[in-house]
């Protein structure tokens, strides 16, 4: 059996198909005539670099945007969706890459937004709540349906997004990077749900930059590159190497700990740092944590969601205040300094949630990149245009942002390229210590390798690097030292010779995966 789409899709096998679909934004050709099949009751995974056009294709299939040319065929019949509601009514729903929840509304209201269940007296809230509880139970997530979404951590918000798509009972479910903020355990649960759905005949499209993970669940693999399809194959015929070869044309390596030099003096030192729960809970999210990082050293912090990694990093950067303990940068106490002062002293944080904490949507790519280093190109009262442009061009090259230039709108970049802008912005401040909270969220393997190479190179020049991840494989790359966090403190510390199983065991995670 071949996976290459036939001119006329076989209705028994293919539920939804795209034929010669192209999409252009002005002169940018996001999709150049692609053919794509969604197989009935199976999982089809779409692989591709950042900006390859994956999200664009999915948005076309789910009616969010309209193709410039080409045809969508549902059950053998050509269809044209004008809105996503129309597509939803025909049984197609989508989980967007960027969260589209209303932060001030509760989980329940978000899930039923626009499709409220009508009762005899307005909305039947009790029924909605019952259904939400059932959904969340299915996803094995302990969230109260009445919590406002803004109080949830990123991973839980993603779960809510998934629950919303599941609540529709669709025949075709498109998932655009549903797991980018989920822990390994949560991913396992999601996969269980997916298997359950496919056994009921639901067809799934899956997109992820976690390639191994996607290989566990998929039945078919499709590779998109620069807006064109480059390969199709059933799962049985392919492996990781096949995907990577077709995606980027070469093999990749996340690198190894940079060596051949001695670490410098201690650059960042945390002494018994304790942080109370910022949401007012009566426990500490970071509990008497001490850690020394030396210049040139790369430290990976591994932990499950909720282990306190984000809070730890935000405290070091100055967003949160420690209740007790000290943050010492190059021998000087900085706990009392503002974020700006800490940046000026060489301490930079790349936050986890790029939409909320990383990007200014109303500004251009260039203005976002230069935002944290304004002082470096300001002389007297005014900013120097040329110096700023140089900084922007240099950073775009350094972190390989795929964009038409610094003047492009930030919203026109693909998700992964937006992430690179956030990383580039902080690297442009020429930090001495850089903290990265899940830096690989949503970026492709090529870019991930690129970011890690950049960090390793920085380390060689004396940069102290601390990054967090919830993917064990990423800890076993450039990190000299691996710290496992569990419930606010360090539960284990390893050097780079550790195995995946040891790390996961120390994090309190079942090693079932």
């Amino acid at each position, binding site marked *: 059996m071949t996976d290459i789409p036939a001119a006329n899709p076989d209705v028994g096998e293919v539920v939804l198909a795209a034929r010669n679909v192209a999409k252009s934004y002005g002169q940018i050709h996001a999709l150049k005539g692609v053919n794509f099949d969604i197989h009935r009751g199976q999982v089809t995974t779409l692989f591709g670099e950042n900006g390859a056009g994956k999200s664009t294709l999915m948005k076309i299939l789910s009616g969010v945007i309209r193709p410039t040319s080409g045809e969508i065929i549902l059950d053998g019949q050509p269809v044209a969706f004008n809105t996503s509601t129309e597509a939803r009514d025909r049984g197609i729903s989508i989980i967007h890459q*960027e969260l589209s929840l209303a932060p001030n509304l509760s989980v329940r209201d978000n899930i039923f937004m626009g499709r409220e269940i009508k009762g005899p007296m307005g909305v039947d809230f009790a029924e909605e709540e019952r259904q939400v509880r059932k959904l969340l139970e299915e996803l094995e997530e302990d969230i109260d349906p009445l919590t406002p979404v803004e109080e949830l951590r990123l991973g839980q918000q993603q779960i809510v997004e998934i629950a919303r798509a599941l609540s529709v009972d669709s025949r075709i479910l498109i998932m655009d990077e549903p797991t980018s903020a989920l822990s390994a355990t949560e991913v396992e649960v999601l996969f269980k749900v997916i298997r359950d759905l496919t056994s009921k005949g639901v067809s799934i499209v899956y997109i992820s930059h976690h390639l191994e993970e996607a290989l566990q669940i998929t039945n078919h693999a499709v590779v998109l590159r620069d807006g064109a399809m480059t390969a199709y194959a059933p799962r049985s015929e392919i492996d990781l190497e096949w995907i990577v070869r077709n995606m980027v044309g070469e093999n990749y390596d996340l690198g190894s700990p940079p060596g051949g030099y001695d670490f410098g003096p201690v650059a960042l030192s945390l002494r018994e740092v304790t942080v109370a729960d910022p949401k007012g809970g009566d426990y500490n999210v970071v509990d008497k944590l001490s850690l020394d990082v030396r210049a040139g050293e790369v430290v990976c912090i591994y932990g499950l969601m909720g282990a306190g990694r984000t809070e730890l990093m935000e405290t070091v950067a100055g967003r949160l205040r420690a209740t007790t303990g000290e943050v010492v940068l190059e021998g000087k106490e900085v706990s009392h300094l503002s974020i700006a002062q800490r*940046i000026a002293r060489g301490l930079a944080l790349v936050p986890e949630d790029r939409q909320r904490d990383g990007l*200014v*949507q109303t*500004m251009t790519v260039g203005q976002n990149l230069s*935002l944290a280093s304004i002082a470096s190109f300001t002389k007297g009262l005014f*900013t120097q245009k040329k110096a700023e442009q140089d900084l922007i061009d240099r950073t775009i090259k350094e972190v390989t942002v795929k964009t*038409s230039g610094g003047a492009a709108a930030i919203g026109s970049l693909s998700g992964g390229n937006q992430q690179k802008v956030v990383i580039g912005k902080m690297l442009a401040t020429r930090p001495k210590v850089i903290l990265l909270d899940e830096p690989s969220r949503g970026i492709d393997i090529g870019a991930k390798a690129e970011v890690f190479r950049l960090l390793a190179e920085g380390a060689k020049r004396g940069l102290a690097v601390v990054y967090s991840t919830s993917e064990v494989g990423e800890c076993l790359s450039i990190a000299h030292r691996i710290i496992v966090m569990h419930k606010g403190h360090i539960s284990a510390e390893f050097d780079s010779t550790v195995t995946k199983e040891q790390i996961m065991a120390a994090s309190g995670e079942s090693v079932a995966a």
Partner: protein
Amino acid sequence: MSDTSLTRSAAKGSAQSFSLGRLLLEGRAFFALIAIIAVFSYLSPNYLTVSNLLIMASHVAIYGILAIGMLLVILNGGIDLSVGSVLALCGVLAGALMQGVELPVFGVILFPPVWAVVVLTCAAGALVGALNGALIAWFKVPAFVATLGVMYVARGVALLQTNGLTYNNLHGRPELGNTGFDWLGFNRLAGVPISVLVLATIAILTGLMLSRSSFGRWLYASGGNERAADLSGVPVKRVKITVYTLSGILAAVAGLVLSSQLTSAGPTAGTTYELTAIAAVVIGGAALTGGRGTVRGTMLGAFVIGFLSDGLVIIGVSSYWQTVFTGAVIVLAVLMNSIQYGKGGRKS
């Protein structure tokens, strides 16, 4: 990843093929102004004369100065409802100072010179603005509510100060050395009213500040996404307090210009001017959600409102209809804003 240069040249090509619709949309305030001038010149021969344009411009100056302060606040994602009241408060303060300050302890009456009156009045405006800013930045009171409260308080204080009366004599006396208050509202430099020159100076300085200074960049960033700006080292609280303070100072300047033009200072001056200022900013294409807007747009917005209402007066349309027209223009402007920002802003 290697085709960055290729897509770059492609994007340039698309920027050049500017569509007419887009041009009309982006320059809408400009075209609206042209249309207004054209229509009224047709309806009244007196409209398009240099002297009438200058008179109308001096009316626009008041709204324009307020609107620039409002623009700064709106860029920050806030709103300042207190400017009309602050204008009145500062006006009566200036009026009171012109009448002399009695110091009972020393048994003397001080007559500050006009420059001192101006400085003290602006300082008072700054103080009220800083109060707004502090309430909003430090005590996390929503901008709408904080400035609504201050709007009432400032108006009340202005009424208390004069017991509801108006200062009608602002000329000063030569023997006291405090003459010259009329200069602001009546004099001309090279034929141009001083108030218009004041507006132009403020507009140019603010434009430079927004486009070229680091403060401008901070303001756009914190209005666009305060959390991201904060984490990038932008002093978001300081920015906030500064914009409300500037808005207060500009309200004081507008108060001085208005009382000088009217040669009187009353506690009910400037009622609902805050709404006109907001309208000018919105017509000028700024987004009420923050982060988008320019001085040029706001100036055009102020001139659209001013030239429209003066034009209606000149051709003798009733003031009730003026209100209807102004309202229609505002709604139309907001409609176009949502067309412009609604598309293309979607995330990946």
